[in-house]
């Protein structure tokens, strides 16, 4: 793979990783005993918990779909997840992330067997070091599989981007929001389906050329293969009994 390095001022990552290296990952399912499905996914210092509840009857009734179940996602950061306390409850950012997460997961679940029901996915971030929405999606996909919700494919998520002129995988907080020199930082969360390798989520903010963007897609696709392995390994390690 072509790596763009030594072109700008960001030639060494602040934590010593290679430009296309994902932070160390751990994953586990079955962490919330009362839930229908649950998982935790960690990358570096970022931790995401996902809980699935449902299928259950959707209220109010007018929101029900007689053809298929409805997937509903709620993403939120815990008040103590970052250095400045976050006020509990939804905000504009969390509402948008909930929606794009819902779209990404809806692309792979098959809810045709569960008309008039809702499947709730709750994503919570206890500790944040950038990449919380992608960690949340990785956890949520595992939690859905753990809950036995029919899925056409898995999804895996990663943040890629550009620091000054250098393309990087899995930005940490410094790279995502504290690097302001020269061309600054571009953040691109992406989600890929496991078999079709199609894009289920794509957001971008920053400054990047079309050619560089195309390169980041390749880098994200490759990283998602590693992430998928971590997700699948965790799902294979379910013992049936959730408590340790």
């Amino acid at each position, binding site marked *: 793979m072509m790596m763009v390095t030594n072109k700008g001022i960001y030639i060494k990552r602040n934590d010593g990783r290679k430009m296309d290296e994902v932070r160390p990952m751990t994953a586990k399912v079955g962490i919330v005993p009362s839930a229908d499905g649950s998982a935790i996914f960690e990358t570096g210092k970022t931790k995401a918990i996902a809980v699935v509840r449902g299928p259950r009857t959707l209220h109010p009734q007018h929101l029900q779909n007689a053809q298929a179940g409805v997937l509903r996602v709620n993403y939120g950061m815990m008040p103590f997840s970052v250095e400045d306390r976050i006020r509990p409850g939804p905000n504009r950012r969390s509402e948008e992330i909930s929606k794009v997460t819902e779209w990404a997961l809806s692309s792979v679940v098959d809810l045709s067997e569960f008309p008039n029901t809702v499947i709730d996915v709750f994503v919570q971030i206890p500790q944040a070091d950038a990449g919380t929405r992608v960690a949340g999606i990785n956890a949520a996909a595992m939690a859905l599989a753990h809950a036995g919700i029919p899925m056409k494919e898995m999804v895996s998520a990663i943040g890629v981007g550009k620091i000054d002129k250098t393309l990087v995988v899995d930005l940490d907080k410094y790279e995502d929001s504290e690097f302001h020199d020269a061309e600054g930082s571009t953040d691109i969360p992406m989600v890929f389906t496991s078999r079709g*390798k199609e894009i289920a989520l794509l957001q971008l903010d920053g*400054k990047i050329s079309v050619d560089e963007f195309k390169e980041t897609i390749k880098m994200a696709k490759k990283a998602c293969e590693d992430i998928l392995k971590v997700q699948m390994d965790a799902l294979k390690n379910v013992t049936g009994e959730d408590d340790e």
Partner: protein
Amino acid sequence: MSDYIMPNLQREKIESYLNEGKRLDGRKVDEYRKLVVEDGVSKNSASAVRVKFGKTEVLAGVHLALATPYPDSPDAGTFMTSAELHPMASQQFDIGRPGINAIELARVIDRGIRESGFIDMKKLCIKEGEKVWQVFVDIVAINDDGNILDVAGLAALIALGRARMPIYNEKEDKVDGYSEKEGIPLEKDVLSFSMTFHKVGNAIVADVGKEEEEISKFRLTIAMGGTPLDTPLDKGQTGRANRTGQVSGKPRITAMQKGKAGTISDKDMETILKLAESKWAEMFPKVKEYVFG
């Protein structure tokens, strides 16, 4: 939000037309509707404009207020975009605080403009650490006939481009009306505008109408702006690259957002990026004219 009800027959007709590269209203798949811009919607704000693509219509206004800067950027003004999808615009919209559709729309437009560096935030600083200008862009949908996002994005830019700078009265620490000549500080060449493409049937379609939008599998919004040819910083240097005032003929992406549950294949992505680049080259000079017209 009430559902938009469309007979399956109509859906099939739209898709089968598009599969042959045709649209029901006679436009080409990559053809935008006619843009109409009207100024002077409210004399009381820094600017307020009315923008239409065909029958899709939005109003956008700019307001500047005195504010305290954020601690992490004490020498820069602040910027905020809000949108209201008012029920007067569509039977699908509800009264009340902005819902997810309005929030998403405002945030996507905000990111595209903010990241481009179009607004010179440093010049909006009055006294470092103490007083800065806060720029508000407020968008209100008047009629929804599809693709509100692109119309709203243009309206936001046009309102910014035509906004008058308020006069700061330092003695009394208040705002004393507007300057007759001075606009708000903008970097014209990096202006970035949003283009949204939908997958309908097997086609990638620009500037969707209401029915196309309703049945599309996914949408992808791309904000593209001018690329400044800056002198890069050397290793060890910090700060912003030095502006040369020159721009390259190629666009740079400043924001993207995929919407809806459909997935994007490599082939679709290639089509969209190609289309976005050629549309950008065609529209960039025209958009600039409207923004600063």
